[in-house]
């Protein structure tokens, strides 16, 4: 299953905006300027294929979070076009789920109400929403915590709630903005593995913003490396491996080689 996924990726992983039909997200010459006119991002062009797991990797301040917010429609580009091709039937959030760096939960609402928020805002009737919330909580392993309040959960569990909320609308595209950056390493590894399992079973397109070379190599099929401001795509790496992404992969020579390759490309650019 993993192998077929990998081979499919190999055909369409080129960062070419003209790649066309299977692109689920495409940015064309997108720029974003600060209010003072200074260019923060771009021109940025990228194309992401349905079902792909892509990491946006770059130093802090390079605009990778801005790129993600542009894709989500949370902020408008100064110029250029952002196109999403998601099935029209999914109106809630236009087929996009977003996970912030912070869990961003409503402290006054239970886990169930937090996860159910997108459905409530989308006027999904309670009888239909309830099983979807339960299913979403099961996917992240929090089925027994539906009645808990956010403050009663650990950082990792809050992040899972945030993930469950993003998944509850069954989005085609999952946008994640350094979601595990604030977690301890053990929790982060666990969530990395759980995310990969979810990606394999749910076949979502995932765009994952991170500043960790190791995390991006471990998780993604393709890494788009962004340059310091103004953020552009500086390099693209295919993490073409047939090895299953498990804890063994973390210690494999192949993984280390990929990390070295990506780091080598990253480091010179961090110097002013």
């Amino acid at each position: 299953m993993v192998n077929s996924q990998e081979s499919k990726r190999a055909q369409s992983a080129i960062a070419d905006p003209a790649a066309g039909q299977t692109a689920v997200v495409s940015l064309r010459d997108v720029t974003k300027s600060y209010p003072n006119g200074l260019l923060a991002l771009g021109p940025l062009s990228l194309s992401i294929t349905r079902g792909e797991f892509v990491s946006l990797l770059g130093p802090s301040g390079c605009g990778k979070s801005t790129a993600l917010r542009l894709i989500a429609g949370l902020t408008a580009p100064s110029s250029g076009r952002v196109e999403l091709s998601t099935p029209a039937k999914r109106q809630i959030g236009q087929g996009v789920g977003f996970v912030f760096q912070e869990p961003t939960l409503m402290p006054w609402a239970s886990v169930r109400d937090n996860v159910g928020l997108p459905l409530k805002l989308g006027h999904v009737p309670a009888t239909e929403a309830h099983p979807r919330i339960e299913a979403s909580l099961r996917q992240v392993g929090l089925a027994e915590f539906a009645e808990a309040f956010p403050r009663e959960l650990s950082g990792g569990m809050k992040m899972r709630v945030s993930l469950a909320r993003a998944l509850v609308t069954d989005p085609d595209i999952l946008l994640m903005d350094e979601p595990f950056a604030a977690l301890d390493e053990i929790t982060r590894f666990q969530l990395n593995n759980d995310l990969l399992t979810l990606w394999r079973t749910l076949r979502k397109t995932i765009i994952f913003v991170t500043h960790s070379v190791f995390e991006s190599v471990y998780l993604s099929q393709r890494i788009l490396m962004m340059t310091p401001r103004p953020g552009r795509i500086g390099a693209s790496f295919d993490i073409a491996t047939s090895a299953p992404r498990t804890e063994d992969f973390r210690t494999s020579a192949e993984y280390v080689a990929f990390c070295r390759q990506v780091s080598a490309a990253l480091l010179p650019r961090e110097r002013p």
Partner: protein
Amino acid sequence: MTSESSPDPIHPLANSTPGPEGASRWPQILMPAVVLVAGLLLWEWVIRVNQIQPYVLPAPSAVLQTLLTDWPVLWPSLVTTLLTTLEGFITAAFGGIGLALLFHQSRWVEYSLFPYAVVLQVTPVIAIAPLLLIYLPQETAVIVCAWIVGFFPVLSNTTLGLNSVDRNLGGLFRLYGASRLQTLRYLELPAALPFILGGLRIAGGLSLIGAVVAEIAAGTAGAGSGLAYRIAESGYRLNIPRMFAALLLLSAAGIVIHAVLALASHLMLRRWHESALARED
């Protein structure tokens, strides 16, 4: 290490038995009570030893006795003052929250009206009260006084609360296409609730002050019957024990108002807000 200290993430407070905390709470109740009793005994003793007349300074026992004997007069006055306070508080609550919501909807309304809300707040109410009594029927004037002192903390706190919404949560609501009303109901109002409740707690005490101020201002004009009017009236008649008895009731009313609002606030926030959690620990 942290996992050892909190084995049950669902009910972290469940296993915090009232043992040590319960024991340490007793002095907090006991010590003020001891001071109260000692102060009253000292007061009583000073009066008896020096044979001070009640119209100079009544003994606590005399005040208590007056409270009981004058109860038929004082009780209706207490009810009157409490009703005025309540009406002032309710209008302050609705007025303050309503104005804040209006300001939140439109910058122009906020720019146009906010300075006048500040003017109302900073002008001493005791100076406004006589004017209000000229232009308004007395019952209305008293309520308006209570409203003027009460609404500003509600307004400013609610405004602060509505502007304190987590930006990312706001973004999430936009992502899921929330309407203006949905954002208000499911995000902004709950986020502002701790602030609103804080404003209401201040407004509760202030409404009582506003009612008292208005009653005292109205006192000379006649027709009043609230507790503050009783104090003013008893003052003219040199009925000092009754002044003390009425003051005692006013003070008790203030304490009860504060306690009720604090309790309501605690009950509404206890499941999620830090302020309520700190008290449980």
